[in-house]
């Protein structure tokens, strides 16, 4: 089954990379222009009718987003991953929400988390997980989460030491006994 899929895809598209991860699990990489065509062909003629996930990876060093569409064929229980690279600035990816209505939710999430816009999605820009977010999208790798957290939610007063004796010594009382104090002095030396 997967062999036929491989052959069909190879004839139709210039595949950049083709990895067969398991006997029913195929990962193909296509170029950006033919990504949507490949997804549509997988749906219409190869039987991958179910969209499981749209995922995005931020490759900051190479200045690109890697988009991946994960499709499944329940009849043969085989999985097809189609991925493509898109430039990081003003990233625009065609929407699939009129083919799979469920894609709309994934696309809204990706828009919110990475700032990738999907023209054609009727609900694009609606709040999905974050409400009233004003900063750069939080899942981009150049977003400094800790700095943001300290700025907005305030300091968290961390402990300076990790030695439990400093904190529970007084309460437990063991370290205050003569024996305990002796042991503590010995350990200090």
């Amino acid at each position, binding site marked *: 089954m997967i062999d036929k899929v491989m052959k069909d895809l190879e004839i139709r598209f210039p595949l950049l990379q083709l990895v067969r991860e398991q006997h029913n699990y195929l990962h193909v990489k296509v170029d950006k222009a033919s990504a949507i065509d490949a997804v549509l062909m997988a749906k219409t003629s190869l039987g991958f009718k179910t969209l499981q996930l749209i995922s995005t990876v931020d490759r900051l060093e190479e200045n690109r987003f890697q988009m991946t569409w994960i499709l499944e064929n329940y009849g043969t229980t085989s999985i097809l991953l189609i991925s493509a690279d898109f430039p990081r600035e003003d990233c625009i990816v065609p929407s699939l929400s009129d083919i799979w209505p469920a894609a709309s939710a994934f696309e809204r999430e990706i828009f919110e988390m990475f700032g990738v816009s999907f023209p054609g999605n009727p609900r694009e820009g609606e709040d999905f*997980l*974050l*409400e*009233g*977010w*004003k*900063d750069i999208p*939080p899942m981009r790798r150049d*977003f400094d*989460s*800790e700095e*943001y*957290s300290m700025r*907005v*939610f*305030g*300091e*968290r*007063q*961390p402990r300076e030491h990790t030695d439990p004796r400093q904190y529970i010594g007084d309460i437990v009382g063991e370290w205050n006994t003569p024996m305990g104090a002796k042991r503590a002095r010995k350990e200090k030396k």
Partner: protein
Amino acid sequence: MYCNQRPEKPGNKIEVFEKITNMARANSLWVTAYGTGCGAIELRPLHTSRFDMERFGIAMRPTPRQADVLIISGYLATKTLKRVIRVYEQIQDPKYIVALGSCTINGGMYFDSYNTLNVLDKYLPVDVYVMGCMPRPEAIIDGFSLLMRKIKDGRAQGWKHYKENLDYYRENQKKIITDWDLPDYNW
């Protein structure tokens, strides 16, 4: 129907009456069934025959109208905080907050997350903290017994504190909820 006035100060009560009522309050804590973080998982065993919280008179109510206690079970996203404020203000006085887990104390393991707040006490008045990540049911029962002791002594006054320092809490809340669309006074 919303009230658009500031909350009025709770009046003085007859002391003996209040003492008896405090005993009743301590022995009949009704909890809003609302879980915000992963700590809610460990709340469920409290219903079962092994831990059985009904023997303390603690019961779950599905609506904030009838509850006394709001349990913040762990990390709180800003989006959830909005709903939690709404729920908290609909609970009728007197009301108490029990906060579970290290996330509510200082952010816990989500201290650097972009979306979960670090110190809960800035936004809502917490009466009892329960330590642990996540607290076991025994620890939660222990926290409840501390709350019961506080109520009996009349020390669980978080709700009064909230009303008196409403401006402080509102300022903090509005700082992190950027699209504030709640009614300002909602009693």
